[in-house]
C-alpha cells in the first residue's frame, strides 16, 4: 500500500484490539491495522465471527477499542457525543425495522437532524432533498409500517445520510432482498460516493456486488485483517481465501482456473479476457 498523508485518511487503525467485557470476554479484534482513504468505497467481508461487525462498530464509535489506536475522520470517535458522531460516521443497521422511530416517513428522516439541533428551515430543505433522491418523497406521509422492505431499507439510509456523515457504514444491505433491489441500493451508495465524496464502508457477503461496486476489499478472519486490496487482487488470492467462507464470483473463479490475466471479476471483463485469449 502506498502511504497517504494522514489528513486524507477516513479511517486509520493500528493494532486495533477489542475485547467484549465480562461475562463474554471474547477477543473480537486481535490487532487490526488498516487505512481507508477518504472517498473510498470499501467492502468489509468475512464470515460470522470474523470480527467484521466489531470492526464496523469500532469505526462508528459504538465500541471503544481496548488496545491499539483508531482514528476516524481524524478523531477518536468513541469519545464524541452521539450528536457529534453522527456528522462524522453514519451507521445503517441490517434490519430496517430496528431503525424506524417515527410514525411518518418525513418525521423519521427529520428525527436525526432535530437531535443535532439543525434549524427547522434547514431541516425542511435537507429532508426534502434526501427523500426526493431516494424516491420516497411521494411516500413521505405514510407510516413506515406500510412501506415495502426495499422502501424501508431506503428510508433507513435516508435517515442517516440526511445528517451528511463523512463516512457511511452500511451493514448487510442486501439481506432478504432480491438482486435487483440489492443493486439499486448499491447504485445509491455508489452515487453518494461519486457525487458527495462520501466514504462508504459496506459489510456484505455477496461477492458479485463486491466485484461490481467496491474499489477496496477488507477480508476479516479470526479478528484480523487477512487480506486487503482492490477486489481483483483479493479474489486472485484463492489459496488464502480458502480458510474464510469467501468464494470469489464465478467469473473470477473461471479466470483463476483458466489463468486469465488480468483476472476478470465481472461478466464483461470475462468476455473480453476470453475473447482476447482465443486464437484469431
Amino acid at each position: 500500500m502506498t502511504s497517504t498523508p494522514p489528513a486524507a485518511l477516513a479511517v486509520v487503525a493500528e493494532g486495533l484490539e477489542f475485547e467484549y467485557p465480562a461475562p463474554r470476554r471474547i477477543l473480537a479484534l486481535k490487532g487490526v491495522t488498516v487505512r481507508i482513504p477518504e472517498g473510498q468505497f470499501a467492502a468489509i467481508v468475512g464470515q460470522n465471527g470474523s470480527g467484521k461487525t466489531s470492526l464496523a462498530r469500532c469505526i462508528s464509535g459504538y465500541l471503544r477499542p481496548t488496545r491499539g489506536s483508531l482514528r476516524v475522520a481524524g478523531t477518536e470517535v468513541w469519545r464524541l457525543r452521539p450528536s457529534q458522531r453522527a456528522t462524522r460516521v453514519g451507521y445503517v443497521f441490517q434490519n430496517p425495522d430496528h431503525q424506524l422511530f417515527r410514525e411518518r416517513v418525513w418525521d423519521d428522516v427529520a428525527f436525526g437532524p432535530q437531535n443535532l439541533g439543525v434549524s427547522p428551515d434547514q431541516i425542511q430543505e435537507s429532508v426534502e432533498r434526501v427523500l426526493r433522491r431516494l424516491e420516497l418523497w411521494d411516500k413521505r406521509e405514510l407510516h413506515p409500517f406500510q412501506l415495502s422492505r426495499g422502501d424501508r431499507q431506503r428510508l433507513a439510509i435516508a435517515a442517516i445520510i440526511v445528517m451528511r456523515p463523512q463516512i457511511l457504514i452500511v451493514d448487510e444491505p442486501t439481506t432478504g432482498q432480491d438482486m435487483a433491489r440489492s443493486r439499486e441500493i448499491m447504485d445509491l451508495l455508489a452515487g453518494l460516493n461519486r457525487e458527495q465524496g462520501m466514504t462508504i464502508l459496506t459489510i456484505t457477503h455477496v461477492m458479485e456486488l463486491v466485484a461490481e461496486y467496491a474499489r477496496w476489499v477488507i477480508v476479516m478472519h479470526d479478528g484480523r485483517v487477512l487480506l486487503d486490496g482492490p477486489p481483483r487482487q483479493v479474489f486472485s488470492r484463492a489459496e488464502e481465501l480458502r480458510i474464510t467462507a469467501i468464494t470469489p464470483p464465478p467469473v473470477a473463479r473461471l479466470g483463476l482456473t483458466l489463468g486469465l490475466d488480468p483476472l476478470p471479476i465481472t461478466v464483461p471483463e470475462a468476455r473480453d479476457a476470453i475473447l482476447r485469449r482465443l486464437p484469431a
Partner: protein
Amino acid sequence: MKLLYQFSAGDSFLHRLDPRTKLVFVVCFLISTFLLPEPWVMPLAIITIIWIFGRVSPLEYLVFILFLLPLMTAIVLIHLLTDGPPYFDTPPLGVLHLSRPGWDAGLLVAFRLAAMGIAFIMFSMTTDPFDWGMAMYQSGLNYKVAFMFAFAMRFFPLLQEELVVIRNALTARGYRAIGSRNPYVFLRGVAISIMPLGLGALRRSRDIALAMELRGFNYAETVGTRRTVFRDIRMRPRDHAVVAVSVFGLIAAVALSVRLGAFPEVPRAWLVFLAILLVLFSVIAWRISRTIKG
C-alpha cells in the same frame, strides 16, 4: 446469549424438579421469609440452595443482586430516617434522626425483598418455561394459554437483543439515550424505542402465527383429537419429598416465628378473613381453569 432471568439449560437437582414442586417451594419460602426475624438468614439460605442444588453460582446472577442493592438501600434509608425513637447517638444531621428500630425494620424489609427476588429467579433460571407451561396444562390449564405463556418467555431474550440494536440505532440518529443522566431523555428514549421494537415484533408475529398454524397449533381443536405431551413431566418421589420438606419447613417457620414472638401481629379477624380470601381465590382459579380447559 444467556441473559438474566433466562433459563440456563443445566442438569442439576433443581433443573430436574417438576415446575409445580418448585412453585410450592417458592411459595412456602416466601411466606417463611415474612415470618422469620433475622434478615440475612433467608437470602443466604436461598443463595446456598441455588448454588448447591442448582449449580448456579451467585456470580451468574450478580447483576440482578446489584440491581436490587439500590432498592434495598433506599428502603433502609427510608425506614432509618422516618421511623420513630430511640435514635442512634450521632452528631445531629439537622432535623434528621437515625432511628434504631428503623434500621432493624429497614434491613428486615430489604433482605426479605432480596430473598423473594432471588427465589423468583431461582425458579426462572432452573425451569424451562415450556416444562412449566406443560405442567400447568397437565394440571388442567388450557393448552393455548399455557403455551403462549411459555412462548412469551422464550421470545423475551430476542426482544432484549433487539432492544440493544435499537438503542444503538437511536444513538446513530444523534440521540443520546444510553449514557444520559437526564431521566426525561432516558425515558423518552425508551418510549421512542417501543415503536421499532413493536414493529419488528408485529411483523415477525404474523410469520410465527402462520408457521404455528402450519405445524398444527389448531389441529386438536379442528380435527377433534387430543394432544400428546411428549416431555416427561410428572411428580417423582424427589418432587414429593421436596414438597414435603417445603411444607414442613413452612410449618417450622410458623412455629419458630410464634415461639420467638416474631409472628406478625395480625388481628385474628384479619387472619380469618385472609384465609377465607385465599380459599375463595383458589376455588375460583380452579373453576376458571376447568371452564377454559382445552
